[in-house]
């Protein structure tokens, strides 16, 4: 086996019992944790992750090492790790894929992150709809504890970590990191005002690191093989691989792991088998529902954060939703606006009122009852939400509508 192939998270996903500790260990699992705990200082682990410039896979793309570095050091004060397994961004299912195939990879990533930052308690916040995966994670936690990979004195060292699986109860907003913290504290998922950032005041008012599942799954590979090997895959500034969730009107929906910076067109046509039933591609949402859509002539774009921003969209959670030419855009608009109206936490007026209003207009367009000025009103509402809310959910609701109106205005104006 080529050494670098071990940097592909999904390399062993064809194995039958990879989710069992025994199989995971037989494939080199927990070797990174052993190496770090026995031969590296926490700072050395942190530096390696910084050098790898691992960008967060949850949506915002912030470098993990820098985030960890924000946690105050040199004190014994309690601090926490929260693993974001809420996976609510429509179109996204990669974290489910990772956790169901390889829960120990996530646990090993959590051990390494906790060791680097001096954390002794981690919570995996998993969406309530993933009950079977939550159970699988709990089994993995028990296995890891039984063989000394969790609990006190991990691998015979002075370092200890407890991991608890915490189930959400159905609320998209709890994927937003500060809403997640509120929810973990037993409250409504209302995002907090930042600053203070969670790295200084987070869970139970303690310094807290919040990372996406996929982000943490990259850590064992980085520690075992080094930042340099990691950076050889993907782009120099945005290295490694990403797991793209591809769905919608494609022949082969699924998770595809590719180096960052791979072509969107290739992902759709070569991996996912192209548009289903011989239809043509009309539009693509390239980074989860909140990402502005691209049209057929805009899909020769690289799948990395910077390239997609240049293309006027975003990489977000890496979820690609393909829309075919027989789908009316009023259907897509209706579903997008209904989602944000349903999921707005209600704290900020522009988001609460604006998303509900957009959804009413979209439902009218879909039902063929367009009124004069509806499309303009949609545009005005979305512009009024953008940039005027406490958390990025407002932008998430506004940007896809603005893109849809800009790119498919004629079609919307014809709907009646």
């Amino acid at each position, binding site marked *: 086996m080529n050494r670098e192939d071990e940097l592909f998270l999904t390399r062993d996903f064809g194995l039958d019992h990879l989710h069992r500790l025994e199989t995971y260990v037989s494939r080199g699992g927990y070797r990174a944790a052993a190496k770090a705990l026995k031969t590296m200082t926490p700072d050395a682990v942190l530096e390696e992750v910084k050098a790898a410039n691992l960008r967060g896979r949850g949506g915002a793309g912030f470098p993990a090492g820098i985030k960890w570095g924000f946690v105050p050091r040199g004190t014994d004060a309690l601090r926490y790790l929260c693993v974001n397994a809420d996976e609510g961004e429509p179109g996204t299912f990669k974290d489910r894929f990772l956790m169901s195939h390889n829960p120990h990879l996530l646990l090993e990533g959590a051990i390494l992150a906790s060791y680097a930052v001096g954390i002794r308690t981690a919570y995996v916040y998993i969406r309530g709809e993933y009950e079977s995966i939550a159970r699988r994670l709990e089994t993995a936690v028990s296995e890891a504890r039984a063989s000394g990979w969790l609990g006190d004195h991990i691998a015979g060292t002075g370092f200890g970590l407890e991991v608890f699986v915490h189930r959400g109860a159905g609320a998209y907003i709890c994927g937003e990191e500060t809403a997640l913290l509120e929810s973990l504290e037993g409250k409504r998922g209302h995002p907090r005002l930042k600053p203070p950032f969670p790295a200084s005041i987070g869970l139970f008012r303690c310094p807290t690191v919040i990372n996406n599942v996929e982000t943490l799954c990259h850590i064992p590979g980085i520690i075992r093989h080094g930042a340099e090997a990691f950076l050889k895959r993907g782009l120099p500034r945005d290295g490694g691989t990403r797991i793209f969730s591809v769905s919608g*009107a494609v022949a082969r929906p699924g998770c595809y792991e590719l180096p960052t910076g791979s072509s969107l067109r290739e992902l759709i046509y070569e991996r996912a088998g192209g548009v289903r039933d011989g239809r043509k591609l009309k539009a693509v949402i390239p980074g989860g529902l909140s990402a502005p859509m691209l049209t057929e002539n805009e899909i020769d774009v690289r799948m990395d954060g910077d390239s997609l921003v240049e293309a006027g969209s975003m990489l977000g959670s890496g*979820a690609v939703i393909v829309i075919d030419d027989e789908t009316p855009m009023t259907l897509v608009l209706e579903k997008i606006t209904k989602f944000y109206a349903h999921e707005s936490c209600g704290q900020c007026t522009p988001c609460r009122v604006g998303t509900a209003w957009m959804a009413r207009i979209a439902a009218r367009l879909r039902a063929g009852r367009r009124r004069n000025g509806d499309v303009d009103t949609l545009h005005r509402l979305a512009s009024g939400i953008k940039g005027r809310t406490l958390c990025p959910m407002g932008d998430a609701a506004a940007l896809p509508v603005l893109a849809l109106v800009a790119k498919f205005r004629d079609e919307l104006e014809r709907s009646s």
Partner: protein
Amino acid sequence: MSHNIPDRVKRRVEDILSRYPRREAALLPVLSALQEERGFLSHSDEEWAADTLGIPPAKVREVVTFYSLFRRKPAGRHHLQVCTNVSCALNGADGLLSHLRKKLGIAEGETSADGRFSLSSVECLGHCDEAPCLMVNDEHYGRLDRRALDELLEKLE
């Protein structure tokens, strides 16, 4: 007031409480454990949770009404939750939902007269690769068409 909470739930709650440095942090998992027992959260469940965690009942109500997985009235034995977000809609979710409405004679938010089925439409379930999909209680079913759906309903007693 007698709350009538079975001992096995109380034991589970003790275990849940041991995971958090503050009792109130256990609210979501405690409510889930209570709901699992009865199928919904009664007024008395909410009061018991408030007492046990040392928080005002209004705080509990606030949380119960915020999260979509909590219910304040019973659902059917089989709670059908049909995803109608974009990827499922591109694969015929709306047709499946209207098929279910007709076949069961209920609308979203309703329960069939015999208590067997209840129906709701939900947002993305994270199984878009298996679109169109739905959840029956905690189980996921994907790649459904009307026939597969009819067969599934047959099996749910």
